[in-house]
């Protein structure tokens, strides 16, 4: 191309390049902002994300009440200063007292800064070559504070907690005595009675419904059905509704391309209701004399994570591992799936 014509074209193209550059910068910025917003939303959807467990305060100090629960991240520091991941304001706790790290399969490694004193389940920290590990239910003593670790489902270590020597296991961890043959026979008889009563009630309800239907067929009532009053329109959607309407961007959680959908088990018959499970009630002195009854008030106590902590009511830190979402087995299955999918089945 002759130089004069090229010069003209190049000078004209300046604006085209500037426009494209502005477009590129704008799109990059918008993408960056969108991802920031999505990250915030994701945090709301996954409140437990990044945490491996909780520290329950069994004995605190002025700034830390007994019964408080401190979420524990994968790695972090513990100390009296607010900049720490776990802020424990109690006598004898330094500004930066110790740091911890979660090791897969071994538990929460704890190491003090400098010469600060740390004790886990009765064992003092001695050297870096022999680190302290905390498992589910381990107790941590820093200064005058006493904390107990409760790990989430999928993060429990395998028996790493060392027991304090000379201290007996707590009553909560003792196995309840098994009922004898007579008690079991009474219990089974009671179960049979319950089952028969349930069957009878179902049969009655069916017959009643059938008779009502027949009566309606014989003398149909005009316009019995009334249109329900319209509910107040609000912007509140459930997550599934919002996703169905395209209001939720799920792209961050998409399945990689080319990956097959998981196969669901095919059931030929509709799934039956899960069989009722009965647990023997807690043993006490007058158990044998009392009539066996299902204790509904204590059902799943402490498992739903919304227990109220007030006063001296301290949650049992040794309760089974929990998560905001699922149980241990499902968490383990999910972990396996992630490993198989992204890490070729290797251990992390």
């Amino acid at each position, binding site marked *: 191309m002759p130089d004069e014509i090229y010069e003209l074209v190049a000078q004209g193209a300046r604006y085209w390049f500037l426009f494209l550059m502005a477009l590129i910068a704008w799109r990059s910025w918008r993408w960056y902002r969108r991802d920031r917003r999505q990250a915030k939303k994701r945090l709301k959807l996954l409140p437990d994300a990044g945490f491996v467990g909780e520290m329950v305060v069994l004995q605190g100090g002025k700034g830390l009440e007994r019964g408080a629960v401190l979420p524990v991240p994968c790695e972090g520091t513990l100390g009296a200063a607010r900049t720490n991941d776990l802020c424990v304001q109690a006598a004898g706790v330094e500004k930066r007292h110790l740091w911890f790290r979660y090791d897969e399969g071994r538990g929460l490694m704890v190491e003090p800064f400098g010469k600060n004193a740390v004790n886990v389940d009765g064992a003092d920290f001695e050297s870096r070559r022999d680190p302290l590990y905390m498992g589910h239910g381990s107790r941590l003593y820093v200064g005058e504070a006493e904390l107990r670790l409760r790990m989430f489902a999928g993060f429990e270590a395998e028996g790493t907690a060392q027991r304090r020597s000379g201290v007996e296991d707590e009553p909560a961890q003792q196995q309840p005595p098994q009922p004898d043959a007579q008690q079991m026979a009474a219990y089974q008889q009671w179960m049979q009675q319950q089952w028969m009563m349930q069957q009878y009630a179902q049969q009655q309800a069916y017959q009643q419904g059938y008779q009502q239907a027949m009566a309606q067929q014989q003398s149909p009532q005009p316009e019995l059905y009334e249109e329900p009053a319209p509910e107040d329109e609000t912007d509140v959607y459930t997550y599934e509704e919002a996703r169905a309407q395209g209001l939720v961007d799920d792209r961050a959680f998409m399945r990689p391309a080319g990956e097959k959908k*998981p196969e669901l088990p095919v059931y030929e018959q509709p799934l039956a209701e899960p069989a009722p499970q009965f647990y023997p009630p807690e043993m006490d002195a007058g158990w044998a004399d009392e009539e066996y009854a299902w204790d509904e008030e204590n059902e799943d106590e402490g498992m739903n994570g919304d227990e109220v902590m007030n006063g001296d009511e301290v949650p049992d830190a040794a309760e089974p591992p929990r998560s905001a979402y699922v149980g241990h087995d499902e968490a383990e299955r999910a972990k396996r799936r992630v490993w198989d999918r*992204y890490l070729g089945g290797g251990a992390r």
Partner: protein
Amino acid sequence: MSKRSRRAEMQAARRARARADRERRRDPARALVSAMMLFYFSAFLLIALQGEIQWQGFALAAAVPMMIYIATLWLPRFFPADKLLLAIANFLCALGVLVLYSTDRGAGTSRGMQQAMYYGIGIIAMLVCIMIVRYIRRWKFLMKVVMMGAAALMVLPLAIGTEQNGATNWIVIGGTSLQPSEVVKIALLLILGWYMSRHQFWPWFLFAGFSLLVLMLQKDLGTALIYYITTLLLFYASTGNLPLTGLGVIGGCGAAVVGYKMFAHVKKRVAIWRNPWIYYETSGYQIAQTLMAIASGGLFGVGLGLGAPRVIPVYFTDCIFAVICEQFGVIFGILVLAMYVILILRGTFIAQSSRHSFHAIMAMGATVMLGVQTFIIIGGVLKMIPLTGVTMPFVSYGGTSLVSCMGLIGLIQGVASVNQDDLTYDYEISRSLQEEMLLPEADR
């Protein structure tokens, strides 16, 4: 099957296709990459038509957009990567190739083609760094090996190095020049990240101190400044210890004053920075020409392939930002700076999202290093600070620099992919298998 049901099926399929098209159009990665590809296709096409038609230009017009597409949209299919970071890094690399190729015309050099080759090598280096971060788990022993290897590399120029532009920081191996301090950047970040995350002070402190000492002996002040600021900021990020960090800042300022008093060339640089026009005929010529080039470009530039960039000494490395401003204009230059800012923000975001302090410190370090390097060179070109001889990340000519910058991006990408794994795990345990069936298919 009846006609009506077939028609309904076809309508449903058409609606599904339309929905998929809409989704594809909304995908920010595709929108951004398509704009980038269009930019480079038209730019290289224009350059190819300058004077006699050059087939190399046509080849680059096809190859560079293709490389951007592959590196940004195709490679992330193999690992969960941060596409925005990839897109920006690729854009800046390709900008370097474009500017160098445009200045090659009439100069008889082939820096543009060489830079394109280095760009390919840089992508491989990035992949290697991603693999290192993702798959190496046993760092304890490896870190000692890395430390010893990096220390040996650092002292190599003192033994067999050659002097270029006043600094003895180059070695020649088999006819290829190499700047070891650029490679050691990655090792430095690994070492700082590992030992800082383990709260072990002396190993990283000794290594950083040793590196700074060697760089001072090599008179490579720009790189020494990058190492120092990165180490200091990472120390603050990992410990939050303000008094010691402040002490480090004071120490750095003291060292700068001592360096000013001791070294004549430092004094000279400061004098040139204060008033380059007095030294226009001699040592101030470079910065004066740089400022004139930026001024002559004006707001919209003189046009791609036009102007007189070759008048500026070392226009292809230190002063390439002045060439960009001259050819594309000051507004374009500001937008290029905006891309660097987004890259730094993104790197910080990735570091913040990391759940492991080793990864967080490493990603933060890589981001800080890129940011500091960009500030030092662009600040020098714009006469905000004294000009020191460092390269503009991704854009300047130089294989070692480009490969090391892509390696740094690889470290950040590796951390981003680990973050994505962690997030996926969280998501997996929060959803049941039935819900997973409803998830849409992604194209990552």
